[in-house]
């Protein structure tokens, strides 16, 4: 019989899987991460291990959101300019670059996670990122452009698949 796995203590009150939508709700396609997560409330209503949240903040504020979670699924807008709008990209934290991979002076997702580790906070063991390629994240507006609107359903399915997989 294997010895019991020594676990890092986690905040028991927090659901082990956090699905976090990022974006700006009044900047056209920039809201896609928020909209995907909002659309999941009905689908994932019965999943006690999954918490759905959205935030319009960035940088260090992410630390407050993700600390104490075992698993994190980020949903965000992305603009690579290399794939058509509405394309769904799946990344992991390494794709965003931790502090050792880049020399940034901004605080990115990878860097935020590394900072949390350094400060002794409980950072997620698994991080998945579902990003939707957007057409227009610069115009004030509350409607998604058509291609991005069409990606809402498929993106939500991907997020739900990852989150429920990790919740098991």
């Amino acid at each position, binding site marked *: 019989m294997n010895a019991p796995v020594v676990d890092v203590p986690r905040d028991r009150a927090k659901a082990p899987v956090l699905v976090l939508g990022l974006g*700006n709700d009044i900047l056209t396609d920039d809201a896609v991460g928020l909209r995907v997560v909002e659309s999941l409330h009905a689908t994932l209503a019965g999943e006690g291990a999954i918490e759905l949240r959205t935030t319009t903040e960035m940088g260090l504020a992410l630390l407050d959101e993700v600390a104490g979670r075992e698993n994190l699924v980020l949903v965000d807008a992305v603009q690579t300019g290399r794939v058509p709008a509405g394309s769904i990209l799946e990344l992991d934290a390494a794709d965003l670059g931790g502090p050792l991979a880049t020399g940034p002076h901004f605080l990115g997702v990878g860097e935020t996670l590394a900072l949390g580790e350094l400060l002794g906070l409980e950072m997620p063991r698994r991080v998945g990122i579902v990003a939707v390629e957007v057409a227009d994240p610069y115009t004030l507006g509350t409607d998604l452009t058509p291609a991005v609107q069409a990606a809402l359903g498929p993106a939500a399915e991907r997020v739900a698949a990852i989150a429920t997989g990790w919740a098991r």
Partner: protein
Amino acid sequence: MDEATQQAFNAGSLRANAAYQSAKRNVTIDPITRLEGHGKIDIYLDDKGDVERAYLQVPELRGFEVFCRGRPAEDMPQITSRICGVCPTAHHMAATKTLDALYQVEPTPAGRKIRELVYHTFMLEDHALHVFVLGGPDFIVGPEAPPELRNIVGVIQKVGLDAGKRVIGMRRQLRELIAYFGGKVVHPVLGLPGGVSKSLKPADLPRFQALAREGIEFARWTLEIFHSVVLANPDYVKLITSDAFTHRTCYLGMVDADNRLNFYDGQLRVVDCDGREVCRFAPHQYRDYIAEHVEPWSYMKFTFLKQRGWHGFVEGPETSIYSVAPLARLNVADGMATPRAQAAYEEYFQVLGGRPVHHTLANHWARVVEMVYAAERIDQLVNDPDITNPEVRRIPTAVPAQGIGVVEAPRGTLFHHYETDERGVIRMANLIVATGNNAARIAMSVEKAAKNLIKGGEVREGLLNKVEMAFRAYDPCLGCATHALPGHTPLKVRIFDRERRLVRELSQG
């Protein structure tokens, strides 16, 4: 020269100019790559491989006025705080003050002081974030340090883990204070015309007073770190005062009746490159003093001093270009309204050779001086008997027409201007954001740094960081709205040869 030759000469000259201009205009603005950055710097080399021009390009925020038109003016503190994930409180406060002006109502003393308390808390928190996380790596870790260390993790390795925890802990507490009054930091619901929506309960006061004392200690400690790490290093001081990072421009900032710095309210003062007052005006007069210039290569509008006229990106006694933000605010202020900040202000000018200081990188030091002021002001406010007065709002009764409101945001002067119908429905909304006020000087700084750092086609290692340092000192908010994946103002630098061919591309990330 005979007439035919003259004509041929002129025609040739016109063609050459047109070709040159069209080459300039061919500076295309590509889709900005979110994963790699929000902005880019295009550098054009001449025959010798020296820098002919360098352009900083950023995406624009579009459709603001259209979005606002037809909405109730009371929505503006919420709408404008949502357009920017970086400085929501600054927009919220500028919008709230604009509503005061629109409805011609003065907030009650408690209402005003609660606004000031929240605002100075925001300034302290935001400045601390810049000092330690965004700008700090340049100095605390060092401009020549390996890239993998020039970040917050490197900062913590240098100042110690406990110090890192202190920064993060202080920030959390300051944000809790903001949230006490406004709910979510990012979408504050606090400001109303004539006051605020929530009073400070006397029972909660002691913890805010304790936080204020801690805030002062935190700001003083930050100043000590700046001393021991930055000012004690002759190389850093040399870099701060070097020509590559210096511009003799005018400066704009808000001052009180005694010409002391004020973040929340007062008159706007402009000094020239010798520190002489050029003008002093009330916020509602801004259109008489500030105009905007457009360049074909940029989405940014470049503000300048209207009465001097646009003379291009030039510095010196005649320039109409001004700067805002910490460096500018200290330059326009005759002093600080609190004792420790005053001492820090005096030392700053003594070490840097008197007022005004033209060194862009001195923004970092000026920011720490402002942290001391913000902390002391918080302490004054939580010990002011008015602060727990439940009368936090005066109900407006006037018919609205036009309002203009200004605050000093962390990144500089922020103007809001709305016109409404008699029901308070927005007809016109205009913003001049801090980075707009700084745009011309930022463009000059980027170009000057590039010209000083690239010679004979040789692009030295570390160039990207040095050029970025030229604008990072301003703490610019380039994609004024985007929350950003992965984060904050990363840049791409592209270098083109004489034939406008891309010869090198550098990026972080």
